[in-house]
């Protein structure tokens, strides 16, 4: 099929960018969205033009690198899907597709469709862990964790840190990301000793990075490729309240 692509081009973080039109033919339904961009890039190189930069790596929806705003939807039209798992069979002949980077103050554009999401790493460094040095651990089965609790913690821990929640949010809030980590660790007995410190550290860093506030619209949940639920934000708020009550 033939498609018209409008792709955001931006040379660097401090230069202005704009949408550029590209026509592409011979797109097959089995191609993934990123393979379609690969084909476009090979064509650009053959013409001596600079190819389009976009983040990607595992291409199976787990590394969290890919990050495209497709027709205004973070990761495109399908629910529970990262950009790399989106296939061209979801589009039709002569469609116009607008492709942009994540837009958030805390995620500056590096080039074209690539942004800098290291703010997420700094939030993790501020408390998203259990302090246990190598060699300190007790025998694994001495810590019992109920099956349901382990599964609920796993559902929260499934976050891939892609930033779609931030991109989808009108306030560029990182609450879903932060809540997923807080929720993962707060539910497990191993996470209890540091729970107050953790939630305070992470939320403080989140605010410091310039992410906006949460206004409960749920756009983040709808965009999340791993279907992390709003329930986690509730749990984060509860953890925050708990931390402030006991401090």
């Amino acid at each position, binding site marked *: 099929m033939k498609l018209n692509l409008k792709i955001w081009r931006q040379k660097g973080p401090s230069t202005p960018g704009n949408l550029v039109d590209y026509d592409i033919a011979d797109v097959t339904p089995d191609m993934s969205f990123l393979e379609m961009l690969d084909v476009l890039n090979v064509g650009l190189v053959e013409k001596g033009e600079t190819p389009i930069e976009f983040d990607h790596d595992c291409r199976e929806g787990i590394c969290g690198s890919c990050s495209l705003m497709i027709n205004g939807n973070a990761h495109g039209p399908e629910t529970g899907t990262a950009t790399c*798992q989106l296939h061209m069979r979801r589009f039709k002949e002569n469609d116009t597709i607008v492709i942009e980077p994540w837009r958030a103050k805390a995620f500056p554009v590096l080039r074209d469709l*690539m942004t800098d999401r290291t703010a997420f790493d700094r939030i993790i460094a501020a408390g998203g862990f259990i302090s246990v040095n*190598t060699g300190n651990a007790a025998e694994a089965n001495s810590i019992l*964790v109920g099956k349901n609790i382990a599964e609920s913690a796993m559902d929260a821990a499934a976050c891939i840190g892609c930033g779609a929640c931030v991109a989808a949010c009108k306030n560029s809030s990182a609450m879903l990301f932060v809540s997923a980590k807080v929720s993962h660790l707060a539910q497990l007995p191993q996470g209890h000793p540091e729970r107050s410190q953790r939630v305070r550290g992470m939320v403080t860093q989140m605010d410091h990075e310039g992410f906006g506030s949460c206004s409960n619209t749920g756009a983040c949940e709808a965009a999340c490729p791993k279907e992390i639920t709003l329930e986690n934000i509730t749990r984060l708020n509860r953890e925050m309240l708990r931390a402030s009550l006991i401090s």
Partner: protein
Amino acid sequence: MLDSKIPSGPIENKWTERKFENKLVNPANRRKHTIIVVGSGLAGASAAASLAEQGYKVKVFTYHESPRRAHSIAAQGGINAAKNYQNDGDSVHRLFYDTIKGGDYRAREANVYRLAEVSVNIIDQCVAQGVPFAREYGGTLANRSFGGTQVSRTFYAKGQTGQQLLIGAYSSLMRQVGEKSIELFSRHEMLDLILSDGKARGIVTRNLVTGEITSHTGDAVVLASGGYSNVFFLSTNAKASNATAAWRAYKRGAYMANPCYTQIHPTCIPVSGDHQSKLTLMSESLRNDGRVWVPKKAGDDRAPAQIAENERDYYLERMYPAFGNLVPRDVASRASKRMCDEGLGVGSSKLAVYLDFQEAIERLGESKVKEKYANLFQMYEKITDENPYKTPMRIFPAVHYVMGGLWVDYNLMSNIPGLFVLGEANFSDHGANRLGASALMQGLADGYFVAPYSIGNYLGGEKLAPIKLEQDPVKATTQAVKEKIESFKKIKGNQSAETIHRRLGKIMWDYCGMSREESGLKEAISKIGALKEEFSNTLWVPQDDKCLSSEMEKAGRVSDFLELGELMCIDALERKESCGGHFREEMQTPDGETLRDDTHFSHVAAWEFNTEKPKLHKEALTFEYAHIAQRNYK
């Protein structure tokens, strides 16, 4: 012959013995040592965190945006450990034995024993970090089975075990970043190794955002840069996974061991067209419940549901009744290839076999199957647009892992003093074939429990002269990196590195893939020579390299893959036997199984770089504890 520095004494005591012999660095002196860690996957992140916890100054380099995006994250099925929680006869000795046998008697016994020994500590450590492993109703840890074993020793977190283990190691690493004991350099790619007085003292990196070339010095360098499966272009590895860090170390004198040992994973989603950019694995854990079959009649084009039970050949169950669908990966892959070669393949390309869950769904119910494999089934459906609850999966083998890598001794140090190599980047533990759920185990064993001891021993025993950035080995190495980049820019051709990479991959798959033979390997070497020539005449990269430029990144990686591909073929040609994933057509049993030649090839082949042709060094492999035999999974 190479000295592997294996401790003396019985195998059960070797590691304890070595830990006691090791020299130590006083806690107050540790902060005076800088350790450079390249790579932030399971091995790199766990080593960096553990070393920083002990008090060393650690610098971590990753070409990823964040350490959490390292390719370990994509491992699905699980991690082995000899806990014997299932009371089914597992032990350290059995895990050791299974791994040696699975590797077709081409791994070093002492290393494998240590791996099995520390496996139990890994699970403890990960649970303490909050890794949400699957649990039983009573709250204890659950296990599942994996290929090549008859016990249930695999720990898992749904189909995302690698992700959860990496997040555990990454969170420990980030804790140390927060405490300022680790300095993290993301989007930095290592492009050379700095040697001074013959010791590894630093690296040269390119900042992938600004293009800036800088050098970093320290007292030891740890390479945990992963494997090189992407030499085949199409593999299950992430797109950026590459050989560059290891290869540039090889060019500085580190030996590359058994480069031809490649693992072809039996259950991947088949290629769908010429645009294919990578392949997707379907976890081996699926073979616990999925049954592999092809139609009995060649050219049977009917839909799978229309092919009756008695018209199906469940060939793994037929050929290997003792292990059935859970034979090791190399055995399962070759059997699929054989079926397809005989015209029994399914799907439009005829290069696929069925992996069928109908029996499991009938036995366990769809919800139970969903609980175990939901994310894998969903991933399959997204890619193929077929529902595996209703129709069997189509699968085909694909390159997945490399057992070969930089040569290391028992202490995980390469032949270059001060250069340690961990995880998939080294060659040490899996012999000629890796068992499922053992890569995660090895990465974490190396990083959490081996490297911290070995590196302490090295630093405690060496007198290292201070090294300054303006000194000659640093300046000269940095200059060499800059010149290589300039040489790519001077070509001004019209092909992207990726186009050439795709062609290299085809040569490797055709001649150095699932089966290899002399004339094909020779042909591959000459074809790669021609492709190298073409690369140096027709490559195109943007002239501006002081910015983010993925074409420049790929150019460097592909130039290394071309050289590595050649060495893999040379190694495969030299090894005139079949073992594990290395199948030489000339050497097989009457029923098509691998035929080893223990008299001539019970050794590690370690290659030394030489501008003319690589020089072969050997490390003899002896088996005192594992009874050496023809592998038998019947």
